[in-house]
């Protein structure tokens, strides 16, 4: 199970930049199609909001690859060390 978790970590790590790439391409295409202020705001908000989440997803994938989730804490002492 732990090896599956580590392998899946690669997917989560790559999913974030791939997702952001498609988001930015779609945003540029839609803004070009309808270049009004509403469209620009909408898509800019999507990019600004999802960019840090994508970074979080990469960190999550990295931790998973490194085996950080092989054992989950069973006590808060393990978290607050």
């Amino acid at each position: 199970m732990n090896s599956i978790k580590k392998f899946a970590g690669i997917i989560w790590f790559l999913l974030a930049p791939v997702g952001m790439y498609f988001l930015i391409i779609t945003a540029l295409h839609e803004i070009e199609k309808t270049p009004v202020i509403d469209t620009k705001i909408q898509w800019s908000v999507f990019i600004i909001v999802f960019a840090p989440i994508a970074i979080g997803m990469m960190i999550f994938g990295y931790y998973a690859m490194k085996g950080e989730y092989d054992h989950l804490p069973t006590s808060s002492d393990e978290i607050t060390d």
Partner: protein
Amino acid sequence: MNTNDSKGIWKVIGASSAGTLIEWYDFYIFGSLATVIASQFFPKTNPTAALLSTLATFAAGFIVRPFGALVFGRLGDIIGRKYTFLLTLIIMGGSTFAIGLVPGYETIGFAAPIIVLLLRLLQGLALGGEYGGAATYVAEHSPENKRGFYTSWIQTTATLGLFVSLGVILITRHSLDTDAAKSIAKFNDWGWRIPFLVSIILVIVSIYIRMKMKESPLFAKLKTEGKTSVNPLKESFAHKTNLKMVLLALFGATMGQGVVWYTGQFYAQSFIENVCKVDFDQSRTILIWSILFATPFFVVFGGLSDKIGRKWIMLVGMLLAIFTYIPLFGNLLSTTDIKTKTEITEKKQIDSSITTIAKTNDALKKTVIKTFYTDGMQMTETRTDTLFAQAGKKEAKPDIKISKLISDADYWYMVLLVFVMVLYVTMVYGPIAAFLVELFPTKIRYTSMSLPYHIGNGVFGGLTPFIATLLTTIYTDNKLVGLNYPIIVAAICLVIGTLYISNRIDKNVND
């Protein structure tokens, strides 16, 4: 648990739930009255006002909520749960009441949309801080074997807040005049302010109840021992051991929970009204009935999670949503599709009227076509054409509005379909508070659980109606294409949750 303890926990749940319900009510009435508010504060003819309108919609719901989680989460872990969620209630109630008092754009010009935008931002901030406090407060009072059951009462408040807001709006809309049309006109003119103003009474009562509550016993103990966190933000997000749990909570639980919630309760209503073209009142009462029937299941699944664990209830809810959204929404669409109905041609009514546009020679031609069907459905198509006096002037695109009054049988069938969707909401949402509380230590619990909750619900969930609707405008030939967004997000969350989340119930949240 003895009788006094039992009475005590119900007081705690009552005080927390009442306040949280009111906060959700306050937050929803703005969304439910978006069209009316836009006409009062954000006239479309003015591009800057329209820009502020977009910001008010987006910023409050999605960007500000996670910031509220950080600001108030930090406060809650430093000064305590009680005073923090008292503060969020005052901010939310005050801003809602103030929105009801702001003069319209016609009276004070640009100041109106700017004030409303600022008040809406305050609402978003307050909401971001409320939930974590209420859930933590109840969980920290609950015995270990009933944590899911007791915290699930907090989970009902978001849904009941929507229920109450829809109810108050419908009642106000129809009680301002004996004539239905006049009543709606009065509501659109000034009556919309009533649901905002009413909230102050509810807030004052709730503040009074909350003032009488004691601090969470776990937090009070930490404070007495001088063990509270000095810098909750740093301890929550800069320490790898805690950050990895925050990320797991977001990507393995709240992200999927958020999209299932917003699809079942918000996109479903928007879909029924804007895609199926069902009448304003019917589309809202369909949701009201569905919510009413499904709400007890929050407590059922919350209680069940105390026995079998939180993980699989939430993940099964996501799994069912992933596989049944397309047929459920497809059925909503086919139920209201006129191609499946037989028209009663002899009952068809067509009325036309022409009114001149003031200060011009142009006119508006309004044609109302009423079509009746054998199953009892009635469709009203209102077409407005601009007739230009000047010869050769390009004809403007007609404005066509369609509204369907569906039959009783179809109505209750749609209630059943939405009920199933809300049932999924109860599965993913009922156990989530207990799940999040158990994931983090007491001294940074408020901060740590608030952020993944509000990113999952505010960003992933809150954007669901927008992204789904946006997809339907990009891929116009498929009316169900919008569902791809919640289905993909829920599927990723399901896989992550299955692989990485533990089903263990943490017996000890005192640490």
